[in-house]
């Protein structure tokens, strides 16, 4: 098993320790880093590769610079945003490593890996109270393979931290524990790369307190809340600035398409400017709650409330948008567009950029 692309989600205790190990992986050509947070002073003691000068800076950007220093020539892409907001195509065919600190984000990680057919999914975790380091190794491309949520119980789907609640306390895990989980993950990658054995979904836990190692095979559970559906992606190389929506439909040539959606994004209808200038906010595919810029006053304007956004754009609503370039509709490199036809399987297209 060879990996050319890696997606590293979360750059805290475990992610910052995994990064230099990934940098040394032979054959790797591109790494995508995702973390919405900025570096805090408390991070310096428990996260790898940081200096006091990094406090206040974006984790994704700081570690992107670090990675370029470790392996010049490697293509590095940094997303300083929530995992749910990055294009679904970033998961496709990638070695995905989740170094996250909450199950809400793990739901996004798991769904992205299985829907977009990642080559491998690793989920890392640590628990400071009894010095546990864990790695779950999952194979999204293998038919019938367990997903991350197959081993979850009701208690794992805890309520999200609501806006009124105080900030979550830090995990308190040491840098050494993060490095242990990262090393476990890297060893699993090396085993898969070097061995011709049948890959098995597995969870490995090391308890540093009791010096015990636990390993268990993971099996798909029919009562899992995730539907395990995957998209059949066709690559669509195009220029987002030079291709209109109408031209995309022509290129896609899906007969009888009745609706479209951009995976992970929502169609915001044209809205009045929230600054009150009387202008309009252009329609487009944006994240939940994502705003835009007023076409008249040029000021940032609030987007539609989630209830007013549309998941799917029906054919009847296409005509005013057909002449608009995809970039102006909010589409990005590696976004996935799905066209649904009334009498057939949906067709999904992974947008990759060409020079216009």
């Amino acid at each position: 098993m060879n990996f050319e692309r890696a997606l590293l989600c979360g750059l805290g205790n475990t992610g910052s320790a995994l990064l230099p190990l990934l940098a040394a992986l032979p054959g790797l050509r591109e790494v995508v880093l995702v973390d919405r947070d900025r570096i805090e002073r408390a991070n310096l003691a428990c996260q790898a590769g940081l200096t006091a000068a990094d406090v206040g800076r974006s984790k994704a950007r700081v570690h992107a610079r670090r990675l370029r220093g470790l392996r010049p020539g490697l293509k590095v892409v940094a997303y300083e945003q929530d995992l749910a907001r990055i294009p679904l195509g970033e998961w496709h065919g990638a070695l995905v490593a989740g170094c996250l600190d909450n199950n809400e984000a793990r739901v996004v990680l798991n769904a992205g890996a299985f829907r977009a057919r990642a080559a491998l999914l690793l989920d890392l975790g640590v628990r400071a109270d009894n010095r546990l380091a864990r790695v779950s190794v999952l194979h999204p491309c293998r038919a019938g393979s367990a997903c991350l949520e197959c081993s979850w119980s009701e208690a794992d789907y805890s309520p999200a931290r609501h806006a009124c609640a105080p900030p979550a306390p830090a995990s308190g895990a040491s840098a050494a524990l993060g490095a242990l989980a990262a090393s476990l993950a890297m060893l699993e990658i090396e085993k898969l790369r070097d061995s011709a054995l049948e890959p098995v979904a597995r969870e490995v836990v090391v308890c540093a307190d009791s010096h015990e190692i636990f390993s268990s095979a993971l099996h798909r559970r029919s009562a899992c809340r995730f539907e395990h559906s995957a998209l059949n992606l066709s690559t669509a190389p195009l220029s987002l600035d030079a291709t209109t929506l109408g031209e995309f439909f022509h290129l896609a040539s899906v007969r009888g398409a009745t609706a479209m959606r951009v995976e992970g994004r929502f169609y915001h209808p044209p809205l009045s400017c929230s600054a009150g200038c009387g202008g309009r906010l252009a329609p487009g595919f944006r994240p939940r709650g994502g705003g835009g810029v007023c076409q008249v006053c040029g000021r940032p304007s609030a987007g539609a409330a989630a209830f007013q956004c549309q998941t799917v754009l029906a054919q009847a609503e296409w005509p005013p948008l057909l002449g608009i370039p995809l970039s102006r509709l909010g589409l990005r490199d590696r976004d996935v567009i799905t066209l649904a036809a009334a009498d057939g399987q949906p067709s999904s297209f992974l947008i990759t950029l060409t020079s216009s």
Partner: protein
Amino acid sequence: MNPAQPIHSLEAELALLGITGPFAAFLNAQHKLASALDQAGDVLRVTRAGADRFLLSFQCRTLIGSNQRDCRAADCRVMAGIWFPQDYLRRASTADVVTLLDPRVFHPNLRGGVFCFELKPGMGLRDLAHVIYELLSWQTVNTVHGLDDEALDWARANRNLWPLDTRPLFSKRAPAAEKEDTGHV
């Protein structure tokens, strides 16, 4: 789905949205429940607004306005939109799921149309309606942490004035238990 569009067939709409498996079962259960909730009392009206959306309309006494100077208690119809995102059984955010549409309500745990309460993934319409009603009627107020600081100050200073509406949400036979509503086992 566009809330303005009429519902022709729930099955067809679910297919269009690419919704299958446990979440499709959950939505089917919510659509069946919506009719029962709509007839379970005088306070709540439930309207279907798409395969994954509902409009909840509460006839209740609440505090209308945007600040301490202009707020006033009034009997009115408050509209809230409910949208169940595709991953709702697995993760849920109140900002996505519940939107206050009209009118502007003054409450410590409500700001800019966004409610603040503990939302468990997979919480069904019946429980959502309860939580929203208890907030709108000021039966429930989190006076420790708030979204609207001015409303939080008002709530602390006027503890004797709330709750504003003490009627139960459902005056007739309560709909089916939540565990049967969720559609998953």
